[in-house]
């Protein structure tokens, strides 16, 4: 459903994403893990059509995103990490705007908007301007907007930012249902290990713009150098050259450099 072939994104001499290839079939939840600055958001924005790759091909449902953007984007739902919305529209107006943008028809759009506002517990706020919403409410509204056109592909950047535990649980259940029941391909970027572990069927770890490892959680555990290591150990192993720095400037193992020499 989602296919990236040799995708590269360069900013002059710096490669934000380098020769990235991966595929997410229908009905799968794919977790895209990586530290800050690894290229997760750049990749997500390229898949969402908000950013053009320097080279390589992105196919959504078989449609080449650069050649047939309209067809590719019409089956896509995108949830960015920051809830930027039209502050002077109400929640209801935003969803109707989305329905028109995705050409799903006014009657169906209104029915779906009502359903989603109920689902995300925003029905009572439907006529309030978005500028009055809290961060979490805006995030939920964005999710409602992304689900409104019944997408076959869902691309999500840091899904739990700004959500309370109840909201987070609701969102996880929705993603699972969409993948299992409706066969939606869900591509999630996160750096939260526990979320990836609980939600994703497969996980890709990106480091310095390139895919460092890929597989199910079990497969990744087996790849980990540390015996009996968990996902977090593998993540740290793959994404850093040395151990973690600690407060005071020393390494976790050795303490402050030179401290023992005195």
């Amino acid at each position, binding site marked *: 459903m989602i296919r990236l072939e040799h995708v590269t*994104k*360069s*900013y*002059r*001499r*710096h490669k*934000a*994403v380098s020769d990235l290839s991966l595929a997410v079939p229908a009905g799968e939840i794919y977790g895209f893990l990586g530290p*800050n*600055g*690894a*290229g*997760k*958001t*750049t990749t997500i*924005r390229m898949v*969402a*059509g*908000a*950013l*053009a790759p*320097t080279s390589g091909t992105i196919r959504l449902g078989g449609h080449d995103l650069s050649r047939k*953007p*309209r*067809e590719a*984007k*019409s089956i*896509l739902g*995108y949830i*960015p990490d*920051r809830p*930027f*919305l*039209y502050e*002077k*529209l*109400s929640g*209801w*107006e935003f969803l*109707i*705007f*989305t*329905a*028109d*943008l*995705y*050409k799903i028809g006014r009657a169906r759009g209104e029915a779906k908007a009502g359903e989603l506002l109920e689902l995300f517990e925003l029905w009572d706020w439907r*006529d*309030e*301007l978005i*500028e*009055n919403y809290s961060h979490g409410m805006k995030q939920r509204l964005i999710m409602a*907007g992304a689900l409104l056109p019944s997408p076959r592909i869902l691309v999500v950047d840091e899904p739990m930012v700004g959500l309370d535990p109840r909201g987070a649980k609701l969102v996880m259940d929705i993603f699972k249902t969409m993948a299992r029941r409706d066969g939606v391909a869900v591509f999630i970027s996160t750096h939260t290990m526990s979320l990836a572990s609980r939600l994703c069927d497969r996980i890709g770890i990106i480091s*310095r*713009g390139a895919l460092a490892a890929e597989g199910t959680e079990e497969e990744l555990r087996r790849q980990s150098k540390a015996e009996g290591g968990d996902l977090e150990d593998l993540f740290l192993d793959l994404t850093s050259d040395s151990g973690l720095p600690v407060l005071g400037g020393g390494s976790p193992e050795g303490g402050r450099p030179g401290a023992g020499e005195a």
Partner: protein
Amino acid sequence: MFREYLTLLAPARLSFVNYLRDPGQGGRVKTISLAVFTLALWAALFLLSVRMIRSYYSVEGFGDILSYKTFSLLWISGAALLVFSAFITALSSFYLSRDLPLLMAAPVDRESVFWARSTQSVISSSWMPVSFLLPVFLAFGYAFRAGPLYYALLAPAALPVVLSASFLSQTLVILLVNVLPARRTRDIVSLLGLFGFAALYMVFRLLRPEQLVNPESFRSVAGYLASLQTPTSPMLPTTWATDLLWPLLGGSRGDFREVYLALLWAMAGALAVVSSYAAHFLYWQGYNKSQEGAGRQKAGGLLNLVAGVFRLVKNPEMRAVAVKDFKIFFRDHTQWSQLFLLGALMIIYLYNFSVLNLKRYPLQAFFLENTLAFLNVGLVGLVSATLSLRFAFPSISAEGFSYWIIRSSPMSTGDFIRGKLLFWLAPIMAVALTLTWLTSRFLDAAPMMAATAFALTLLLTPGLCALGVGLGSRFPRFDTENLAQVPTGYGGLIFMVSSSLSLLCIIGLSAWPVVRYLRIRRGMSQFGLKEGILIPLLALSVLALAWLLWRRPLKMGREALEIYDEETGRLDLPEEAPDSPEDLEPAGEAGAAPGPGRPRAGGGPGRP
């Protein structure tokens, strides 16, 4: 405390220094073009002012008093402008800035925060009025052949006026925020300011100031002098500044009245103390109050009903964007309130033509009326260009950070731009055609000339609007906090230059056929082979130019938006194209990775 104060000013200072070091993509070209444009504007303002001052001074018997009154009025209006500008800036700076929670949470004295903000507010509210008034004051010195003391005392006289205006506004802001919520205060004050400006503009024009330089139009000397009355008070700093500098324009050092300079600085000092007391007792209290919401605002009502008219738009995506833009425009007071200025502009425009009495010159009346009706196309073009710059140009940037919604949707960039264009073209076209038609009627133009003016306006306006939307797409500023500032940037400058040149070309190409027509109509010439060949050719050229103006900017805008990079806020040009090797580093998440050759802000030491 002083150290804290300097530290708190560091972000603004460093941002400015960093901008000078690395002005961004195409920054050097932009900076040079802006500098050239500003210098040209200053020169024009200086020369125009010298001319005006000389013409005022040459009015026999009244020249001196007229010049004095103008000089005094300049100080009063400058100070009024400063008070208004400082009020709006202080409100944002003290209560609404995004970084305030961070500063308030820091272990710094709140009075340091206040004084740092006060300094920033003084600078940002005064630099523009001061820089535009400076050439006028210099022109006074030049026209009157003032001595060096006049120039030397300009800054020491102007600075306390600037400071007094700022401290007065700051004190008012602190007091008002304790009574009204900050968010509402800004709305109320900016609306009042706008209405006041529109009203003042209309009153000023309807008073027919051009009669001041024509004393013959007054029946008596007393009537003339009465018409020159301007509000002056011996207690106002602007009067002190006027009375300090006016005698020095004559070049005599003996006329230097030190007391006025002392008064000016004493007033600035006194207002600083008042402002400081107000801040000490009320700033923190007001800041807490300003954090309360402005109250919940609900959607619905009349606006939804009127938005129903967009059902006529068949394309659902374009309709969706149009309905959204319509609602946002009328819910944002900073946007809809500009319609009052537009109304005032239209009334004054039509009034100017209604008071023209060309029948006074019976022999030339026909030529004058019809030539003016034709030249009016250029003036209406300028109005359309202004409206396009004010409304169509920032319409793309108006999407703000929410642009991702359009970008990730199936809507094509072309449809998005066309939707924006059609949304703004309809009202701008309506204004342009109304002005053209009514002006032709006021001028009593020949039907053929009125029809030509109407047709030319019909041809020109879409091109100017397309230029606005196209260049607005080429130079988008999605990160702007204030949409009104978008047209004042580099893209706006390019728009002004391109639209003026296009207008000149179209008027230039149409001028010869129009003159020929008028001569033939008066029997002064015959329609010959030359006219038969040249008139269709020129008409075709005008059509081609109008077509180019319609097509080219839209294409350029679409191509630019398609490669717009949200992470860097720049155009994602091919690798060979950037201005400098460092220019295309991303600023977002991916950019956090240490890229080679990335310039280090502030030039501090690198991480070991």
